[in-house]
């Protein structure tokens, strides 16, 4: 989740109180974010994905202020009327918009920085890399209303931010950095979204703003556009942006959005009211709090609440996008109470423990193999087809392959254990021989059914030394089967990984369950091995039944 650095001085100024670094760390971690570090100048936090309202420095300061009791209550923000109306056509790729006018901004360094930071973070997170929500911030005084939000042809022109020459929207996608990065979001649509005033296009969401409406140090008033594919997300992102600006003393003004069939006014900073049963709070947390105490705790978290019989009517600020269910509010009660203030209580849930049958059987086999004088190894289930097939001199067969591997070494799941163990031998040529290894592990085979695959638990043994031969591995295999009291039969096996006439298949009730033999020198060459290797591999699931 996003890691964000904050200006410590600015943060403490916004909070309105000084804290020692350790105090600050503890307060922030009690609220939720993880503190990566606090230096002389910076506070670096790793955020959780739900508290988007804390991403901006102003929202973070607000939460700290409320939590430590400096202003423990819901913050109300005034929204005046700008008188502005945006006519919104139905734009196919980004149907929902929210706009706001913000007056009286003093664009000192800290504000510009925080405005840029929050935009970037919101784009990356809740905006899903601008696909779901994108934000544009403009110098309001450079815009000549009326403003329309329309779908336009890709041949329409704009002077994109940071450029001096006019270009078509198509060219913006081809030539500008942002165009290349985010063009795919709108590429497939015939008409592209644009905010247009009486002069020209001034915003081309979700790609870029116009140079004309660029925000500079002289900017006094802002026009903010938020567009997206999810109405709720658009409205809430706008709430977060404007309430952050209001925390800096800016004046908020609303904009009317006139769609074809309805009219909305944004930003919508109206609180939601969610009913929370007091029993739910106390049952979930194991507490017995009175309504009054619950309200005190909720205020610490920036809510307001009304005690109403066995319920609380909780007033949720508009910037809290994460509240879906009363349980989300219960968590905030717990946070205000302090996680480390809870008593730890043994619920005395009576139940009987039980090992998984196959795991238990695997444990037995492992200790048997250690008794055979073998070293246990654990290798990755993840592997690649070269190791699994090519180097073993066998033809490639179907495997579970991933679409997004992170390295050539790990592209598919193993279908047999032997290559995993031979790879270990090949990495230990400098180590004393004999080398005797085993693994009890899973392979994953393509199969029909729910997950189109099945995991199979297997045992594999490899032994390598100068006189390792068929008779030795036969003895291991037979001793193993005899220890389990299993009736089996053997059949000579032709297998390209083994020397002809020196490999056997193991059958139980006519079913092939494993094999053993001397590894073919060609395979040894492929693995760069110079010592004879004998091997034994068997499915364990079949032996258990």
């Amino acid at each position, binding site marked *: 989740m996003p890691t964000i650095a904050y200006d410590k001085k600015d943060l403490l100024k916004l909070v309105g109180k000084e804290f020692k670094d350790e105090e600050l760390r503890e307060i922030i971690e009690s609220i939720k974010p993880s503190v990566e570090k606090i230096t002389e100048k910076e506070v670096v936090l790793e955020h959780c994905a739900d508290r988007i309202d804390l991403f901006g420095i102003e929202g973070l300061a607000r939460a700290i202020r409320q939590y430590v009791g400096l202003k423990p209550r819901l913050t109300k923000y005034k929204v005046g009327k700008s008188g502005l109306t945006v006519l919104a056509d139905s734009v196919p790729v980004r149907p929902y918009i929210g706009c706001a006018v913000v007056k009286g901004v003093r664009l000192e360094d800290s504000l510009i920085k925080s405005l840029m930071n929050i935009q970037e973070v919101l784009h990356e997170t809740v905006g899903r890399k601008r696909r779901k929500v994108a934000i544009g911030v403009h110098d309001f005084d450079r815009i000549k209303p009326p403003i329309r939000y329309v779908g336009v042809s890709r041949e329409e022109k704009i002077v994109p931010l940071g450029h001096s020459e006019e270009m078509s929207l198509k060219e913006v996608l081809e030539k500008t950095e942002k165009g290349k990065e985010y063009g795919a979001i709108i590429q497939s649509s015939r008409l592209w979204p644009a905010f247009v005033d009486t002069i020209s296009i001034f915003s081309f969401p979700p790609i870029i703003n116009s140079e004309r409406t660029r925000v500079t140090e002289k900017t006094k008033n802002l026009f903010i556009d938020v567009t997206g594919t999810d109405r709720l997300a658009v409205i809430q992102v706008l709430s977060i942006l404007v309430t952050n600006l209001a925390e800096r003393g800016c004046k908020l003004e609303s904009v009317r959005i006139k769609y074809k069939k309805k009219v909305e006014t944004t930003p919508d900073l109206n609180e939601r009211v969610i009913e929370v049963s007091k029993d739910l709070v106390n049952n979930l*947390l194991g507490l017995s709090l009175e309504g009054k105490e619950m309200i005190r705790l909720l205020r610490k978290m920036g809510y307001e609440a009304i005690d109403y019989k066995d319920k609380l009517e909780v007033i949720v600020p508009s910037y809290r996008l994460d509240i879906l269910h009363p*349980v989300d509010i219960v968590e905030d009660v717990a946070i205000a109470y302090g996680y480390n203030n809870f008593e730890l209580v043994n619920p005395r*849930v009576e139940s009987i*423990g039980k090992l*998984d049958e196959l795991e238990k059987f695997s444990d037995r086999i492992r200790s048997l193999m250690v008794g055979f004088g073998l070293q246990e190894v*654990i290798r990755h289930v993840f592997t690649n087809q070269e190791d699994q097939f090519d180097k073993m001199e066998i033809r490639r067969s179907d495997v579970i392959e991933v679409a997004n591997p992170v390295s050539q070494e790990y592209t598919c799941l193993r279908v047999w254990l032997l290559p995993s163990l031979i790879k270990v031998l090949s990495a230990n040529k400098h180590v004393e021989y004999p080398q*005797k290894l085993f693994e009890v592990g899973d392979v994953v085979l393509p199969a029909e*059914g729910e997950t189109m695959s099945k995991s199979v638990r297997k045992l594999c043994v490899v032994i390598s030394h100068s006189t390792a031969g068929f008779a030795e591995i036969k003895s291991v295999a037979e001793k193993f089967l005899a220890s389990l009291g299993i009736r089996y039969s053997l059949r000579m096996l032709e297998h390209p990984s083994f020397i002809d006439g020196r490999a056997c298949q193991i059958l139980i009730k006519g079913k092939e369950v494993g094999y053993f033999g001397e590894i073919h020198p060609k395979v040894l060459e492929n693995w760069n091995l110079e010592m004879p290797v004998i091997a034994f591999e068997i499915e364990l699931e079949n032996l258990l039944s």
Partner: protein
Amino acid sequence: MAMFVLTEEGRKYLKKGLPERRLVELLKKVGRITLKEAEKQVENFDIALQWAKKKGLVELKFNELVLVREPESFLEEEALRRVEGGEEIEEEVLKILLQRNLVEKVVKGDVDKLIGKEVTNLTPELIKTGIWKKVKFKPYSTDTPGQKLSFGKPHFYKQFIDEVREKLIGMGFVEVRGPLVELNFWNCDALFLPSDHPSRSIHEVFFLKKPETGKVLDKELWERIRKTHENGWITGSSGWGFWDPELAKRLILRSHGTALSARTLSRLKKEDIPFKMFSIAKCFRPDVIDAKHHIEFEQCEGIVVGEGLNFKHLLWYLKEIASCAGVEKVRFKPSYFPFTEPSVELQGYINGWVELGGAGIFRPEVTLPLGVEVSVLAWGIGLGRLALVRAGLNDIRDLYTDKLEILSKKFLV
């Protein structure tokens, strides 16, 4: 040069007397006796009878044994005494003793040349010939290097995992296993992860190349999950307002053990509750592979299902689970997981506070569609780092190491 030593049988007769002597003694006492009765009273009766007859000492009369002649002495017994004493005996008696397998020939080779000397190895010949009494053994010192041998040994990571399993079984948890290839449906949708959640991207989850999709078998559950995502269904939630059924069908590699908890809950019957399960679940995530991260790792996943379970109980379990993994000092921090509320990060003190895992109480949006109406406490703890601490290692890649030097050194006690 050859010499002779007593066999085990020879030593026995030297101590107890020859079997035929014991038969003679018996007849002297009882006069006559049936074969059946004699067999009961004389050890090695067959041998006794054979030799007593051969020597003309006894006879069978009317089915009874009678003593014919009482010998003055038994040659063999005297000979056995002499062989034991290292003395030589006559050729003829020796023949009998060899025939009766009471003595055996030992090839002394050069053993007697060792008499009075210092020897390195104690050999079977030295022991059998008794010459060991006449040699000196060369002493070793504490600096003597040990011989290089290959030994069998369990893997230290498995040992650590087994410790944790043992303790959880002791606490009454049932061990569960599940598929490594998983449906997105179980890994994400059943856990109320919104379809567009960043943790579902190709940067966080391995998707299968072929086949791309699996089959969700429970159509009713499928509908309940769809409604929960779209509008909250009957859970009291607003839901996410959208759901992508195609994404839910995609096959992936299990990215967290919680997928298994969702599967288990869906199968849980009312009579199974209260219920506690755990799994040592192998999980996969596309990550940069370095000393701290790998794309394949183990989580200890657990849930407790029961009426009236609450946050205080969850915290108690977390402390106990940490203790199972060898961490005694813990604390709790708020956190976020889309499937739990409240959510908590478990931190343990290991030369400083470190994150051990995540936990919480499953949201109603998770439990109700799965048919569970009571509280479910849940957690997932990464085992890799704890195992490293326990084994005194610090590179996560060493858990699946191919270095035999590491494996042969590490053993947890």
